[in-house]
């Protein structure tokens, strides 16, 4: 079986899991289906020859499930109607169907799966990184060379964004301000 067929089967399972995660009324099953989609993505990364990404994806996904369950434990409210009104729902479904058709038409100009841009454009930067990576940076892992030497500035930006988002999460949950907030019981 070619890689493309394996990926199609995997993506179909992930799509089914996503539909379950969206439609079920129980929050805990929803979060666990999200975990299943994450593991499916990690296996897809392995088939696409990206081992770095598979490691990061599976550990980040486990931590994300832990955080989500932490936020919703012992809390299961079934609202009257889980979604917005029927008219608005119909409008959203029609719009998304239109987007889907447009997407299927637009993907015809990307090029077939399995023929990336670097195969046809020889002057692309990736070709230079693959050819001269070991010699110029000394690292055997070309992805690490790209994120820390050739494109190190982007990694600095990423560290800043992570720092600020964690700081934001801590500030939102500050303990001291609650005494004045007037909690409702």
């Amino acid at each position, binding site marked *: 079986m070619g890689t493309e067929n394996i990926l199609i089967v995997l993506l179909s399972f992930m799509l089914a899991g996503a539909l379950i995660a969206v439609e079920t009324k129980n929050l805990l099953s929803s979060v666990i289906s999200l975990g299943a989609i994450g593991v499916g993505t990690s296996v897809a990364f392995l088939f696409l020859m990206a*081992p*770095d990404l598979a*490691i*990061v994806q599976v*550990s*980040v996904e*486990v*931590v994300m499930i*832990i*955080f989500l369950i*932490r*936020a*919703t*434990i*012992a*809390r299961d409210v079934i609202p009257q109607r889980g979604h917005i009104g029927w008219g608005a729902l119909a409008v959203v479904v029609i719009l998304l169907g239109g987007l889907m058709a447009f997407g299927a038409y637009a993907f015809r100009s990307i090029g077939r799966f399995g023929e990336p841009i670097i195969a046809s454009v020889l002057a692309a930067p990736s070709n230079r990184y693959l050819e001269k990576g*070991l010699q*110029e*940076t*000394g*690292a*055997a*892992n070309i*992805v*690490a*060379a790209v*994120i*820390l*030497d050739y494109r*190190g*500035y982007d*990694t*600095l930006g990423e*560290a800043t964004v*992570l*720092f600020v988002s*964690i700081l934001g*999460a*801590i500030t939102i*949950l*500050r*303990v*001291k301000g*609650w005494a004045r907030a007037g*909690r409702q*019981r």
Partner: protein
Amino acid sequence: MKGMSVIVKTVTRWIKVFIFLYGVYIVITGHLTPGGGFAGGVIIACSYILLTLAYGKEFALQRLSPRTTAGLDSGGALLFLVAALYGIGYGGIFFVNFLQKRYPGRAFQLASAGIIPICNIAIGLKVGASLFLVFIILSVLRITKEKDGKQSMVKRWPEGKEEE
């Protein structure tokens, strides 16, 4: 937050060191094998999260207090920035790999690739400390069910600390 049963505590006591060691291994050999700072950092945070889940929050906070974790987090970011700024002194270029240009090691060795292992360690520290800090802050709150069925949010911070 209370801990878990005796079986979980015993197994955790043996396993957490191996998880931590595996995370450190992935960070250090990030320039030779798949991995790097981000993957290793998340795995290091996972070992501390396992400790917190199995033993309860008070025990884990005695091992590694929030102040130390925040200090490690900022220290990692500062190390990364200092390593990047040092390159200006070398050739006037920000973030140049000056160690590789001055002392190029042999390829495929642990001590090669210039500034890349240092940056990997800085990022591993930063990501690990950040995720553990967020987990501690998120677990301060517990949503509890009271006897009359109403639910409310209670904060359970360890005694003696008011604000962090």
